[in-house]
């Protein structure tokens, strides 16, 4: 068969419209993951032995099992526990929890790079624990982990494509619907690939701009 560029062009408006779904869900997920991941990090820093033991198992589970299976657990298994979630909500929660664990692990890796003298100085100044976190540690931590957090954001964007499997009408599912009515799956999928590529390039670009701005402010 011959690649029909005309078909590729004709599907782009529909796929671009569907891209807003992925973009919206990805933004919600990234916001939840950042907040939850930060909270998890602070909770782990308290070093309450039983709590950290539970969190360690949870982290191992989320890192050791496929995101797709986690999405299935939220979508298929939670209704059994009396929590009947829509596909979109179940999917967003599954990816958010997954990403929150990775955000916390990213932070864990970067925490030791913060000068311990700052903590001593802040404590000597009489700053409360939560103030030390909010004003001393977190601002530096976000700045230092920004490149990795941007990378994690692109992983989240790619993860939203899996929601098509649980019936969320995103770019991929829209592509599949178009493909099944036009019988031109290849061109349509190339269109979907382009949409994701453009979103992720944009995310990386925003990340680099943010980094440059933060670097300039430090001068």
């Amino acid at each position, binding site marked *: *068969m011959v690649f029909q560029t005309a078909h590729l062009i004709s599907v782009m408006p529909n796929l671009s419209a569907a891209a807003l779904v992925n973009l919206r869900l990805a933004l919600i997920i990234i916001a939840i993951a950042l907040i939850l991941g930060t909270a998890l990090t602070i909770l782990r820093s308290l*070093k309450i032995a039983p709590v*950290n033991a539970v969190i360690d198992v949870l982290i191992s589970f989320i890192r*050791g099992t496929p995101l797709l299976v986690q999405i*299935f657990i939220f979508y298929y298994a939670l209704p059994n526990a009396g929590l009947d979630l829509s596909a979109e909500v179940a999917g967003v929660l599954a990816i958010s929890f997954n990403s929150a664990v990775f955000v916390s692990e990213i932070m864990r890796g970067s925490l030791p790079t913060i000068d311990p003298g700052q903590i001593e100085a802040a404590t000597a100044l009489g700053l409360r624990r939560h103030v030390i976190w909010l004003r001393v540690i977190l601002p530096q931590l976000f700045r230092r982990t920004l490149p990795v957090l941007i990378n994690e954001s692109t992983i989240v964007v790619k993860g939203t494509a899996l929601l098509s499997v649980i019936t969320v009408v995103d770019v991929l599912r829209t592509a599949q619907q178009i493909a099944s009515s036009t019988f031109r799956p290849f061109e349509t999928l190339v269109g979907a690939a382009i949409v994701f590529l453009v979103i*992720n390039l944009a995310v990386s670009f925003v990340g680099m701009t943010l980094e440059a701005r933060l670097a300039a402010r430090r001068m």
Partner: protein
Amino acid sequence: MGFDVSVFTTYWPLFLQGALLTIRVCLAAFVVGFALGTVLALLALVPLRPLRFLIGVYLAVLRGIPFIIILFLVHYGLPFAGVRLPAVFTGTIALSLFASAYFAEIVRAAIVALPKGQFESARAIGMSPGQAMRYVVAPQILRPLVPPSTNMTLTMIKESSVLSSITVAELTYQGLVVQGNTFAPFEVFAVVAGVYWIISIAVARAATLLERKAGGAQSKAVTRNSLADSFLSLERRPAS
């Protein structure tokens, strides 16, 4: 809601078959992906602009789009090009291509990290080219490869679950089949997730052993006071 053990006792052969196929597909994709990644990393060292550009585009595209789309592109693209293969093969090819993009970066980083002149120095003290490669260059390239390659292998094992969406009868697919028969999603996905978890932990353990055998760098123990540790360390027992 209790845990219905019969789901596992009745359907364990399906789960086992699925797990074995997952392992086989991942092994094949690891070998092909690593080989292809190494070739790409070496080609990227050739000072030829168009070649570098093409490899750069290949890596950016494969890393920038979701694996499920790579999978569908291969699965529907090959028949489009006149090649008809069973889903297991298209799935393995897609997973190999996906992995190659990341392995290329890992291998490239290991090669670039090798200080220049190591090979020449080894030759200068009288080693044969073979000895220089065997005792000086190879250990320095192979050792730093282990941790990131392990990470990538774990990612690959997890991504292989997506092959279920093109009807490859791997672990996740078998889980969906059993779920269709039993309507016991909790039990089914607990088993499926548990098996992936075991495979991941086993691979991670094996990699740790390999690393120790390769004499990997020991991480430096950081000494710090307990006040700072109460913020900056998440380990349960703070470093003394």
